[in-house]
């Protein structure tokens, strides 16, 4: 297969991103660029889905992989990006950010994510991660006239650059211990020497920071709160999916069979901390957006449970969970953005949600579906995702970890359901007049809710044969 074809989704997005920049330069209207962005993401999504059924292998002299995990990662990333861009229009218009350069920034960061999610070499991993992060620093600082925006960007940037130092040092030590940067070449010669382990530890610190796992999560709530809500959804789903897919690739391809234990022990501890701390602090939040930020930390913890299992089953569970998490989380953020759009940016306190459910039944019901799914209650996709992840942990003998995970997600029911209590069972003291949502927005949110329900009732994998596909891929 030609190299360009192997990275076709990324190439499409990159070209569309550059065209969007040019259109902005020639003063085309933001709506045209918005339409182009959606068309580009749709085209790339189509290519990625087609590639899922094609063969897999490496391209660009072993720098990237295609097919299998990489294609599935691309599908999840593009799905998350598509939904968050589609629902962005009305919200961004309200805060004067419905502009071509914002969309081209989003597109360029998607290129980074796609490179990250197909990295087969520590160099392409590093560059993909940094391309994504630098775009996200900018996206976090888009709301400049409010202090929170610039502050979120500064915190994210300083801590992110600090973490990059550790990540790069980790890569340097792994390179020093093995003399290679290619994941499979490293796996072939790696021995658990001190230097290799030290490098792995530093690399893990960098990755844990980027996914917001607990000792390194301090930036997450601030950044998620300071970012425009629909773009928070983009950061919380697409960026996190990309990093997790890269994590899966590194764990499944770089580590020699005998050495996974040392990593999985560390990941177990971090997973427990992440689930417990994320859920506990989320319990205390009165701001819905901040609550969702902490809940996304908790979800990173559930995802780490699958990685801690360290088996192909666990990795498949992680990939499925990423799909589930993307659909339900973008949905929840979209509805919050809808409320915010009508009532101003400060409209994220839980008290102000009182009685909204009956006033605007469609959005109330949709938000409830997403929240139920986030809790992990059976007929929704969130349950299926959690089931796969925890089942993999139990089969790998990590029963205490799975029990802590189930308990933590049971505790999470409190703060998700609390939002619903306010929506439907509290009286509102004020009269609200919400503008009706645009057709495009409503249909996107309804589609997400439909996906949440469909894959919950029909708990097959989103694309038939995924497990065999991915298992065969690990034996490459």
């Amino acid at each position: 297969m030609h190299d360009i074809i192997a990275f076709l989704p990324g190439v499409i997005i990159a070209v569309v991103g550059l065209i969007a920049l040019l259109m902005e330069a020639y003063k085309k209207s933001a709506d045209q660029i918005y339409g182009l962005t959606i068309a580009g993401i749709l085209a790339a999504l189509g290519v990625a889905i087609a590639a899922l059924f094609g063969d897999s292998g490496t391209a660009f002299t072993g720098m990237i992989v295609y097919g299998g995990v990489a294609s599935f990662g691309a599908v999840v990333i593009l799905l998350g990006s598509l939904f968050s861009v589609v629902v962005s229009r009305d919200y961004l218009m309200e805060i004067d950010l419905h502009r071509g350069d914002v969309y081209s920034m989003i597109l360029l960061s998607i290129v980074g994510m796609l490179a990250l999610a197909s990295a087969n070499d520590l160099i392409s991993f590093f560059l993909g991660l940094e391309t994504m992060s630098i775009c996200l620093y900018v996206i976090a600082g888009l709301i400049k006239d409010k202090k929170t925006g610039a502050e979120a960007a500064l915190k994210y940037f300083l801590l992110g650059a600090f973490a990059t130092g550790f990540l790069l040092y980790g890569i340097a030590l792994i390179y020093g211990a093995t003399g290679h940067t290619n994941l499979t070449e490293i796996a072939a010669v790696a021995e658990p020497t001190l230097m290799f382990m030290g490098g792995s530890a530093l690399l893990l610190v960098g990755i844990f920071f980027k996914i917001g796992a607990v000792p390194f999560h301090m930036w997450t709530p601030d950044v998620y709160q300071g970012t425009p809500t629909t773009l928070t959804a983009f950061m919380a789903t697409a960026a996190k999916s990309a990093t997790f897919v890269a994590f899966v690739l590194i764990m499944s391809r770089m580590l020699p069979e005998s050495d996974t234990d040392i990593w999985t022990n560390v990941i177990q501890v971090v997973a427990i901390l992440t689930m417990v701390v994320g859920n506990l602090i989320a319990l205390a939040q009165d701001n819905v957006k901040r609550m969702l930020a902490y809940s996304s930390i908790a979800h990173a913890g559930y995802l780490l449970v699958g990685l801690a299992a360290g088996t192909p089953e666990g990795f498949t569970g992680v990939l499925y969970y990423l799909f589930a998490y993307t659909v339900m989380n973008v949905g929840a953020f979209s509805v919050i953005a809808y409320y915010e759009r009508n009532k101003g940016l400060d409209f994220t306190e839980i008290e102000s949600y009182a009685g909204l459910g009956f006033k605007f039944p469609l959005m109330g019901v949709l938000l409830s579906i997403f929240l139920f799914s986030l809790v992990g209650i059976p007929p929704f996709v969130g349950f299926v995702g959690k089931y796969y992840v925890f089942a993999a942990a139990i089969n790998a003998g990590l029963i205490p970890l799975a029990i802590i995970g189930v308990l933590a997600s049971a505790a999470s029911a409190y703060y998700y359901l609390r939002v619903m209590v306010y929506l439907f069972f509290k009286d509102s003291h004020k009269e609200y007049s919400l503008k009706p949502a645009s057709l495009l927005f409503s249909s996107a949110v309804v589609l997400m809710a439909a996906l949440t329900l469909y894959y919950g009732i029909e708990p097959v994998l989103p694309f038939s044969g995924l497990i065999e596909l991915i298992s065969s891929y690990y034996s490459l």
Partner: protein
Amino acid sequence: MIGIDWYLALSAILFTIGIIGVLIRRNAIVIFMCVELMLNAVNLSLISFSAYHGDIAGQILVFFSLSVAAAEAVVGLAIIIAIFRNNLSVDITKVNLLRW
């Protein structure tokens, strides 16, 4: 000839000085300069390993890490300018609106 461990030790010392700088300084610009120092220390490690293995990949990675540092510098300084316009200060202890 000097052993590679001397180069690596120099790199580790500079990296540590960078970390301490990030942790104790309050001026966002200086913190960012300390991060640049950390990246530099890593580059030194990479080049030592590259010479040790007689392999070019380490030097290539240094080139890319230089590009990343340049890109980070551009975006980072833009963010620092934005925060200065809001706060009239680059002191990170004055930047604490968002707390959990």
